[in-house]
């Protein structure tokens, strides 16, 4: 069985709002000094899901991690390799830059076709930078595969996957035949934390790089020029802060002051 994890390198979403800056001219985020980019957390959980299926499936299962991005995305690939993935693929080409979810899915789909024998793809439910949450589904559509999103639990038996999904008010388990794409949510649980020997071993694993041409893609169909959704303006919303702290020497006095205000404002 060949499982693929799609992984993205993103600015750390825990960057404090005070350090979060954008460049309005290029509609992009300025990397916060001293804060390293990270593997999008949901993608780490997707890797965990794939590795658990691999481990349950025996020795012939293989996990490949794919990332589309700049050379720096190798760090995200290495992290998933350290978790236990077998091989890495970096999709790197200037032509891929500034694409939308559609062009991203198109490039990932080409790479998955290139690998040839893939049975299942695992993505995070959304990348914690643009928060779009659609690459996994678009990838499934590009490949013509079945899909299930926002997984809490995934199990495999006899060519089928059972996916427990998080709904608005509960859970649902769906079953579908492979090949399929699944997106994984935080309810799945924490990803494993690689130890030093695994990190060392990951450095020796192969990472194959592909350009647009090597995937048979025309530069005009990918990246900014192939995008269907065009970002026109990126800005930081204003928050008006006028907090009034409750005075008082004791919690009782503070609580009384708060209740008084809430009553005056007819909130309770």
């Amino acid at each position: 069985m060949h499982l693929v994890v799609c992984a993205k390198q993103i600015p750390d979403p825990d960057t404090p709002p005070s350090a979060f800056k954008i460049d309005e001219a290029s509609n992009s985020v300025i990397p916060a000094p001293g804060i390293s980019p990270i593997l999008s957390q949901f993608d780490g959980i997707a890797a965990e899901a794939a590795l658990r299926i691999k481990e349950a499936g025996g020795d012939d299962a293989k996990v490949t991690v794919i990332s589309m991005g700049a050379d720096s995305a190798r760090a995200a690939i290495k992290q998933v390799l350290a978790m236990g993935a077998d091989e890495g693929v970096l999709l790197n080409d200037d032509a891929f830059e500034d694409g939308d979810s559609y062009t991203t899915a198109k490039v990932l789909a080409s790479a998955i076709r290139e690998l040839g024998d893939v049975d299942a793809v695992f993505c995070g439910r959304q990348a914690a930078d643009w928060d779009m949450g659609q690459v996994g589904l678009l990838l499934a559509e590009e490949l013509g595969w079945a899909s299930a999103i926002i997984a809490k639990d995934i199990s495999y038996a006899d060519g089928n996957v059972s996916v427990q999904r998080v709904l608005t008010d509960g859970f649902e388990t769906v079953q579908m035949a492979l090949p399929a794409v699944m997106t994984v949510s935080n309810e799945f649980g924490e990803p494993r934390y690689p130890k030093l020997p695994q990190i060392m071993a990951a450095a020796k694993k192969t990472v194959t790089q592909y350009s647009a041409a090597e995937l048979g893609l025309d530069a005009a169909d990918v990246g900014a020029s192939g995008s269907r959704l065009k970002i026109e303006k990126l800005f930081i919303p204003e928050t008006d802060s006028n907090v009034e702290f409750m005075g008082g020497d004791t919690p009782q006095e503070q609580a009384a002051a708060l209740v008084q205000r809430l009553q005056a404002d007819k909130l309770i």
Partner: protein
Amino acid sequence: MSHNILVIGELDEGSASATTLELLAGASEIASGGNVSVTLLGVGASQAVGACAGANTAYASDDAQYDDFRGDQWISAIQSAVESETPDVILVAQSIVGRELGPRLSHKLGTAVAMDCVSISDVDGSIKATRPCFGGNAMATYGFSTSPAIATVRAKSFEVTEGGSGPTTSTELPAASQSRTEIIATEAATAEGLQIQDATVVVCGGRGLGDAEAFGEMESIASAIGLDKAAVGASRAAVDLGWYPPSQQVGLTGKVVTPDLYLAVAVSGASQHMAGCSGSKTIVGINRDEEANIWSFSRYGIIGDYKQVVPALIEELKKASGN
């Protein structure tokens, strides 16, 4: 410029959902004279279109198979409405349905979708969609180079103008086709009583509570205010620790709530959390950190240890309500 807008509606216990009505209200403004149509799928759909104020035409199927959402089944039904309406804009809620339908439908129609939008507007005849990104730290406005422009819209983004009724008849959509995914089990997991989306007061507990038991105290605050008004939510950090059910999570990947009063207890106020509650009328924080991000959104605050503040608050609330 006028626009033909198709709203993909959802049913909630047999009636058009609150968000469907919001989308229709928004659509009739943006349409500026163009046609607004709605689709509803599932038991009661053809009756429920009657309440879809803002829609000029309706498409419905009462087939019970649509009650449990399966993307491929819904898309084939919706495609036939798209063929007869040829909308240039399609709106769907950022719900568990919309999160899947938006991308899949966009691909089927050879176009794009902007997810989780909070405003849709017409600028010189073209549709622009504005949405939070980077967890709410930034906002982005998008245009579309393909048509129709599809957007999933966050709850409470449009206001429902009271009154009015919907179409009296609907065109029947085909019954559900075969699905590639089979639902083999479902499990309900919601808190009893008032739902957080419907409450006028939401008491939200965060990781700083330290344990699951402390959520009992959040429930005591809610009952001191009145369980007809108040419900308890949780931050993702608290949900991930297993202290409260996922159905109660507020935020970007949880629920969006807009109560009159949002009381955040031991919640830091991360942008991804605030994405689910910043539309509340009044936000109040209880936090021991003077520098917490929650203060940027709060009207009132108590700096202190919740373990001391919350019992005092419960007592004062009880006094105030005369219990």
